[in-house]
């Protein structure tokens, strides 16, 4: 049990056979359970799926978890998924982190069962170490002014200005030359319809 208030849950994903086919997910889960401040370690078939996410939410509530590690794929894929998942049961989304045991482990060490298993354990350990120090974060909101600046009065600047002005926004269109029109105004006819440029 913990004495610093930390209650970490580790969720090891098999990703079908994508992870479980190249390393021992049970061993990774059992190892995770021994790490400091980890109060529960769970293995899922697909953690990102609806049942997988339900499991995370269930454990957060039942075990009063306040830090989550998902050992699965790259955070570039599912960080937002799991942040949203934990926040739905009231946990700050920044208290979840991911251990990438798929792209950086199971897929790149396909024929080394023991080696990949040990590496996956290590990756989980590193992530748990970081997760213990994660802090809740709040995203700040800032106001956005309604006016727009368009720099350049060629065909692109003109079109953008008209669209924005028609949509109800005040547009400041700044053109360096004495007239708008840009390079297009110098063209005779234009392709592919052969109509006039001005």
């Amino acid at each position, binding site marked *: 049990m913990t004495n610093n208030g930390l209650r970490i849950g580790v969720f090891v994903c098999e990703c079908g056979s994508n992870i479980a086919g190249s390393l021992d997910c049970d061993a990774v889960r059992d190892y995770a359970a021994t790490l400091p401040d980890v109060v529960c370690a769970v293995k899922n078939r697909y953690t990102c799926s609806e049942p997988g996410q339900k499991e995370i939410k269930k454990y957060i509530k039942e075990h009063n978890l306040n830090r989550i590690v998902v050992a699965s794929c790259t955070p570039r894929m599912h960080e937002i998924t799991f942040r949203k998942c934990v926040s739905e049961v009231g946990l700050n989304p920044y208290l979840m982190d991911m251990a990438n045991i798929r792209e950086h482990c199971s897929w790149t060490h396909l024929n080394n069962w023991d080696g990949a298993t040990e590496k996956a354990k290590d990756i989980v350990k590193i992530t748990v170490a970081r997760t213990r120090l994660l802090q809740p974060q709040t995203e700040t909101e800032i106001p956005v002014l309604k006016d727009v*600046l368009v720099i350049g009065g060629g065909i692109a*600047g003109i079109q953008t200005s*008209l669209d924005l002005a028609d949509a109800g926004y005040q547009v400041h269109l700044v053109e360096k030359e004495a007239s708008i029109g840009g390079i297009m105004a110098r063209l005779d006819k234009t392709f592919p319809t052969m109509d006039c440029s001005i």
Partner: protein
Amino acid sequence: MDVGRHPRVNLLTFSEIEDISGYIGNFQVTVRKKVRFVDEAECNACAECEKVCPMVVPDEFQLGFSSRKAIYMPFPQAVPSVYILNESDCLGHNPIACGKCADVCEKDCIDFDMKDEIIEFEVGAVIVATGMEVYDPTELDEYGYTRYENVITSMELERLISAGGPTEGHFIRPTDQNTPKRIAFIQCVGSRTLNGKGNPYCSTICCMNTIKNSLLLKDHNPDIDIKVFYMDIRAYGKGFEDLYQRSKQAGVQYIRGIPGEAYENPTTKNISLTVEDTITGSLEEHEFDLVVLALGVIPRHDTEFIRKNLSLSKTEDGFLMESHPKLRPVDAPTGGVFFAGCVESPKDIKESVTQAGAAAARAQILLNAGKISVEAITSECLTDFCTGCGVCVKVCPFNAITGGDAKLKIPVEMIEAACKGCGTCAAECNFDAILMRHFEDAQIIAQIDAVLDENPMEKIIVFACNWCSYAGADLAGLSRLQYPLSQRVIRTMCSGRVDSKFILHAFENGAPIVLVSGCHFADCHYIDANRWTQKRVDKLWDKLEKLGIRPERLQLEWISAAEGQKWVKTMNELEEMRIQVTQEEIEHTIKMLKEDRDRAERKSKAKKSLTDLIKKEPVKAIA
């Protein structure tokens, strides 16, 4: 026309951005509206002033093929439809040397005392639509542009065939004002070159522009002989191939081969081209009345000020870099800034209009929301530790840190909305006075410790930036590329976050090899934060060498999101280095780094006690 009349468009022509600063949702803009000497609201374009003006100068709009006066209308359809007096062409107005225009103007709208106007306003979003320039072929001596009058550019041809042009659409050649009967188009002038002249990229519009012009010329005169010399005809867009076929059917000949040189016949002023037809393999010579160089498109050279003030970066070709080449092609990497048109890459009119619409829509998402939530991965100044030295202000790629005064000990201020979270400030701060949220020092140190607390000799610490190198590693995995087990990745948002102390900490705790990896220079998602990574690693290499530690144990690699192969190659190379590192070497490293740290601590303690002493007993301290 509509844009000049729209009630919600404040049209500022003959105006330049004097200053632009701020961040997403809140930009401050200063515009210099240059003096026209003609009252924009009053001028009714009666043209009386132009008639009396005695000064005759080349007309820029007609590319010098005709003339204009010192007071003039840029072109008949100009918006606003207002005259302008060019100060440098005018005989002078201080004191007034001529003043005929002012005398004749019935509405009294010519005012020689008019001054530049400074206009300030604030906006929530900025659309950069500064466009492009056309390549100047003068440097390509082989075509003799400017030496041979009958070698003209595609832009000049546009004026010569335009009904609004200097000849009112009567197509003539410059030397004898006769209508040319044999015309050559040379494609890819200034594009797709690798010899240092021109640019390596395809300008995308020149093929279709030539095809269009060939058809217009055939419309003028069906018997005209037109030959187009090309590398490839890129008629890729909707309706393009159809136009290309029509041009061929009209009798335009397409010859695959770019002429090596142009010669002028001194008597007839006709131009001969020698070319190898790469389809038939034959060497040919052709004579023409007129040669048109189909010019490529280049980035504008006068937008550097805007680029720097908005913290935008360029891709290798010099056009401005978008947020993502496929998924965010309209957004600039700087929040609240969007691209429209050729500023981002060469485009035809349809593509420019499409992107303009997209930019307007993207901007509206922001404007319509009225507020924006900023990701919590931003930096925070720990004011108790900040000395106000300003290093962070200097390194921040987004101008998100301001203030700070070392003498007055005023800490810096963070503009959270402008911070993108690269963490370079935290890495460069010498006083641990910046907290990088979600990528805190303690969190990263904890990861390093967790890597090294068991079997450190067997592991390589790899710092990888989120956007490129980490993604490159992901791609290696996705491609099922195999590499040694030794690497342990620590992800940061940018390689700029990798503090020297992380690297030294890793070595002091037994790491045999450390890799810092990030985006290639032009690709850095934080503009140029990785330049600081490079500088930092350079310094560390010197330091390690001085301490008798092999600098090559610290590696730096730029690996893009597309370079899974490079990731694997790097991992294999690192593994070879790792096995050569001995236990003795690591023990020596630990010893040297510990001693160095102790020395530094003693030094800073001594300095601190001296400062304390100066505070308490200044006289004694000096003695």
